[in-house]
């Protein structure tokens, strides 16, 4: 282990689902203490804390958490970066360690979302009594529903349909079968919010939200938290054999935003920044898509999973439909994708997601994934995207 490498020393996620008896801080504390215990270290070892909670981004979740688990005076970075918040918190801790400011850091992401409805375009504003232009479009009335849609299921439906327009084959049925895969995978994950296998007919016949996304094809709002302890290679070398054996190498940690594209002002472009992040990550890690034993990607909607096969270069450009049809992304395929159940079934407590997907990868690389273990997994990739946009990609490797 080279001294400038970064490693995940401990990582955990809470059960995703409904936690009515726990508040945000309780969940964050459960995940943070779990990660510290998994790492066999304590708050006194931490040199930095990065904490993400999107829905109450101004509340200072990091400092609230310290008061529950240990106030040591270390710097806290409260981060908010849409659905990439968790990955951003992790990357913040990694950067602090990489910069040499400390040799160990803690990253936490937490969200309470059970029962939340639409998260954007969720409240229609009333028309004013007299028309007067407002905002950067000089609009005289709210535009959601009048000029396209602001709802996430609708935005991501268009992202999947646009891929279909460009390359063909992206049918309602295909998207439903992607969802079928993730729901089937979730049956092996005891920490998933939903663990119910669903047939294609059930998925297509369920409540239509935004064609072609029906309800089970949308990420599940739920409560949850995840946390990770990162450590420098130099410090790791001084730790116990057991800690070194279970440590997982962070071979790449990348965060990108969306570069300008012609149509990005009317439909967010989730493709270019993901492709850029993937390219940088493969280069940093010195691995290629063909080396990946498993991938957790941001299937906030079934329509999103399809485009990210292509964006992460798991298939040739334009080949995502054929790639899925080949069975490659099922857990027994050549590139298992979302064996956790993904956001559609495991759930999507926003700020927790970008660390929980890394926990899933680490779980397999450590050989601790039980019934859903991908045998012999050595390299994995975790991807999240937040609209706006921000994309986090991490590549993780089993300790040699």
């Amino acid at each position, binding site marked *: 282990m080279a001294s400038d490498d970064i490693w995940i020393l401990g990582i955990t996620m809470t059960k995703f689902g409904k936690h009515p008896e726990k508040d945000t801080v309780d969940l964050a504390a459960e995940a943070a203490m779990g990660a510290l215990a998994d790492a066999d270290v304590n708050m006194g070892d931490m040199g930095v804390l990065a904490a993400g909670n999107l829905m109450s981004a101004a509340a200072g979740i990091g400092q609230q958490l310290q008061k529950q688990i240990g106030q040591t005076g270390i710097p806290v970075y409260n981060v908010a970066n849409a659905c990439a918040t968790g990955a951003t918190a992790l990357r913040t801790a990694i950067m602090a360690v990489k910069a040499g400011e400390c040799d160990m850091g803690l990253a936490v992401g937490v969200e309470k979302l059970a029962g939340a409805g639409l998260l954007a375009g969720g409240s229609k504003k009333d028309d004013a*009594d007299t028309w007067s232009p407002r905002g*950067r479009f000089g609009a*005289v009335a709210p535009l959601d*529903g009048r000029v*396209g849609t602001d*709802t996430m299921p609708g935005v991501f439906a268009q992202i999947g349909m646009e891929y279909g*327009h460009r390359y063909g084959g992206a049918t309602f049925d295909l998207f439903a079968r992607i969802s079928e895969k993730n729901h089937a995978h979730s049956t092996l994950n005891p920490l998933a919010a939903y663990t119910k296998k669903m047939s294609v007919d059930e998925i297509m016949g369920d409540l239509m939200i935004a*064609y072609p996304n029906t309800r089970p094809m949308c990420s599940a709002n739920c409560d949850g938290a995840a946390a990770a302890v990162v450590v420098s290679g130099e410090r790791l070398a001084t730790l116990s054999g057991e800690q070194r054996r279970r440590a997982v190498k962070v071979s790449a940690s990348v965060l990108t935003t969306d570069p300008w594209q012609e149509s990005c002002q*009317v439909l967010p472009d989730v493709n270019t920044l993901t492709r850029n992040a993937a390219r940088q990550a493969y280069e940093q890690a010195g691995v290629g898509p063909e080396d990946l034993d498993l991938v957790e990607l941001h299937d906030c909607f079934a329509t999103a999973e399809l485009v990210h096969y292509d964006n992460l270069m798991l298939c040739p450009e334009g080949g995502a439909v054929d790639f899925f049809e080949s069975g490659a992304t099922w857990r027994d395929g050549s590139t298992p994708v979302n064996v956790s159940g993904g956001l559609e079934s495991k759930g999507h407590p926003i700020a927790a997601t970008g660390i929980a997907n890394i926990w899933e990868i680490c779980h397999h690389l450590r050989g601790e994934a039980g019934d859903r273990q991908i045998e012999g997994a050595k390299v994995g990739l975790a991807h999240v995207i937040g609209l706006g946009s921000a994309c986090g990609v991490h590549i993780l490797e089993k300790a040699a």
Partner: protein
Amino acid sequence: MSDYEIMASPIPPQIPLVEYLALEPEPHLVAHECTACGARFFDRRNACAACFAAEFRDVDVATTGELRSFTIVSFAAPGVPVPFVAALVDCDGTSVRGNLVNTEPDPDHVTLGMKVKLATFPIGTDSAGTEAIGYGFEPAA
């Protein structure tokens, strides 16, 4: 029609739903185009997101186009009428966001690649009697 009737039912004053919708002489959309690189924006920008230049000129956007993507929204915020078709239209190289109107909002009537044209329609009249005009796209058939 007598002069009296014309007086009693004047054409109400109109205002576009968004500033980038021009109603005269024929309804069309207007974009702010970067004079340096040609990137087009419907909202006001401080500088060009593509090349950082800060000079723009107004240009008319083609009123016909091709449906590049769509979704049929069945579940929206309370008060937003559903279902409706939200669409991404390629108007001769400029991407435009707008609803697909004057067609059934179901997958049998909406197809990727279909030719569409700009359509305008009243969305309501305010307390001063001004009518707001919205836009969408309809099948060009």
